[in-house]
């Protein structure tokens, strides 16, 4: 009885799902599998800068000079619009700054505070224990200043996108003129998808998910940031590479420590597994004489 009912229920579910399949197949045959979209034809996958990054791979390490340069780009360019609320000034010691340098650096930022005499909201110089402040007092102010698009917090950006480090680098260097930019098929956006041309206040970038984003190109000329002596030329590509490295560090300051901890753990486990295997074989070997008898 239970099997008869089961067979009927099973056939019922099968009929229902095949009915749905038939509906879908009918639409696919009569209307095709869907038109190609602008996102599909023009979107590019992020790529690494030439030479990659020092922290990539299982043995990767931070390049402190690069992180310092990246911090400088963040401070002088990105921080005008983007907050970084999960990162504290004290964290900067990991970039090779001394305690005194971090204190001085923190003091060069203004953070929200309370006037000790009147109790009114004011600003004060930052302390090492403060987190990076937001450039806007609240979301409404952020939206109002940016054509209704709130600049996202950058603390976790490198982890919040697929292949985030390469994404940041590619996005910063990927702005193009939609009138002249050609995709792999050799088409321009204006020819192939005129409806997807960026509207007012939007900027074409093939690395952005829907191709048009509100952020104007932030890195517009070589030498926009002045690097200290002994550093590479601050070309747009160099600045993009440095700031994407810096934002990879802010997204996961413990990344290098994580990888460095991993090797001894795996080494120990490999050793322990070999011992366990030998113990297993040794114990079971005792059963074998029975086989002969």
């Amino acid at each position: 009885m239970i099997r008869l009912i089961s067979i009927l229920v099973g056939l019922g579910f099968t009929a229902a799902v095949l009915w749905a399949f038939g509906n879908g197949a009918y639409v696919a045959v009569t209307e095709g599998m869907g038109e190609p979209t602008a996102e599909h034809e023009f979107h590019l996958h992020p790529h690494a800068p030439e030479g990659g990054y020092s922290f990539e791979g299982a043995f990767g390490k931070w390049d402190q000079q690069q992180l310092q340069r990246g911090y400088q780009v963040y401070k002088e360019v990105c921080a005008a619009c983007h907050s970084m609320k999960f990162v504290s000034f004290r964290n900067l010691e990991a970039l090779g700054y001394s305690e005194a340098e971090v204190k001085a650096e923190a003091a060069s930022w203004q953070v929200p505070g309370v006037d000790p005499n009147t109790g009114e909201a004011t600003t004060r110089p930052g302390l090492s224990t403060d987190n990076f402040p937001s450039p806007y007092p609240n979301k409404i102010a952020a939206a109002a200043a940016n054509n209704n698009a709130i600049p996202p917090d950058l603390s976790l950006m490198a982890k919040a996108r697929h292949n985030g480090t390469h994404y940041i680098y590619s996005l910063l260097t990927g702005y193009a003129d939609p009138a002249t930019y050609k995709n792999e098929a050799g088409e321009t956006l204006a020819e192939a998808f005129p409806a997807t041309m960026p509207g007012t206040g939007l900027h074409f970038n093939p690395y952005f998910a829907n191709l048009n984003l509100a952020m104007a190109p932030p890195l517009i000329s070589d030498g926009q940031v002045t690097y200290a002596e002994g550093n590479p030329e601050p070309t747009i590509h160099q600045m993009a590479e440095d700031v994407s490295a810096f934002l990879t560090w802010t997204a996961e300051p413990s990344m290098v420590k994580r990888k460095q901890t991993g090797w001894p753990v795996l080494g120990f486990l490999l050793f322990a597994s070999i011992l366990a295997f030998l113990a297993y074989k040794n114990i079971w070997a005792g059963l074998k004489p029975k086989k002969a008898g």
Partner: protein
Amino acid sequence: MSFPWARQYEPQNGVMKWMDERLPLPRFVYNAVGAGYPVPRNLSYMWNFGVLAGFFLVLQIVTGVILAMHYAANAEVAFGTTEHIMRDVNWGWLMRYAHANGASFFFIVIYLHIFRGFYYSSYKAPREMIWLLGVVIFLLMMATAFMGYVLPWGQMSFWGAKVITGLFGAIPLVGEPLQVWLLGGFAPDNAALNRFFSLHYLLPFVIVAVVILHIWALHIPGSSNPTGVEVKQESDTVPFHPYYTAKDGFGLGVVLLLYFAMVFFLPNYMGHPDNYIEANPLSTPAHIVPEWYFWPFYAILRAFTADFLFIPAKLMGVLAMFAAILVWFILPWLDKSPVRSGHYRPTFKKFFWFGLIPAMAVLFYCGGAPAEEPYVMLSQIATAYYFLHFLVILPIVSSVEKTKPLPNSITEAVLGSNN
């Protein structure tokens, strides 16, 4: 119950003797996982996964209790406290990655454990109760994992909670009030986050309780084995300790190597980048996908794209998704074959390897893919096969199949018939 030749516990000294007469806990352990539990001597590595699942359950509880010390279940700060764990808590990043990847590995070993049961019909008499309790554990695990994924309060947390609780909204008449009652509001917010945290802390201990029943039920008939022939004599078995403690020790080492390779080198591989964006009720992610271990059932849910007779498509999908797991409960009564092991069931074996396994692979893949063609049509075919397999093919094949001859005993299967 145990086999008559099971070794008896003998206290080694006065202290243990004193203990044994008052609270025989050492005797209990000895009989459960010690030398007092005779186990078939022919178990393959597929029999390692029960112990491994137990290990990951304990690991999840230990790391989870530590994470809970630093986490705050409040929609205003939950995302921030998760980042606080990642950045400021000593070894907090290790605890969180160990917990997130531990959930994935718990499901990996459980899926292998369940599919071993399918192939060797571990659900057959006299082991129905072990199987039923196992399905209950799986359902509890899914509920626990779902609520755990909501806690960091990222974009996928929020929208996953919205979609999954929205499934209850498909139930006729009571659906919408039920959904509001479950969430404590019209959308996931503080009320939902708090109750999910409370239940996420509670359910693992319920799982522990059901696991104890699962193992208790296991010790009545004893473990199954790859031949499916029951234990008949002492030479068919070896004591659990040291034989299987040693083998499980090696299995644990191998799985931990894979697990820690993920934790230390690819900790976010099985996660989703969107969950590093704070929950935002006003911005829907482009693709809402649950964690990978839900993908087969998510694919079944989404396969029902057209209303069928008088049943709306969404309700049909919800019914099918729950039915896909509930059908496991009646397997012991659907499969009438007198033979357990798939080794000796040639037709069943073909349907298992060339039907069920490919269908599950397609469902896994399509459940994680966007809801567009060809993934929808592929998952529809796989869903049709899934229900046919368990509810139609299995009852019929198990009744009519001509099985291969079984060995007379486990000893004969291992050592040859001249013993």
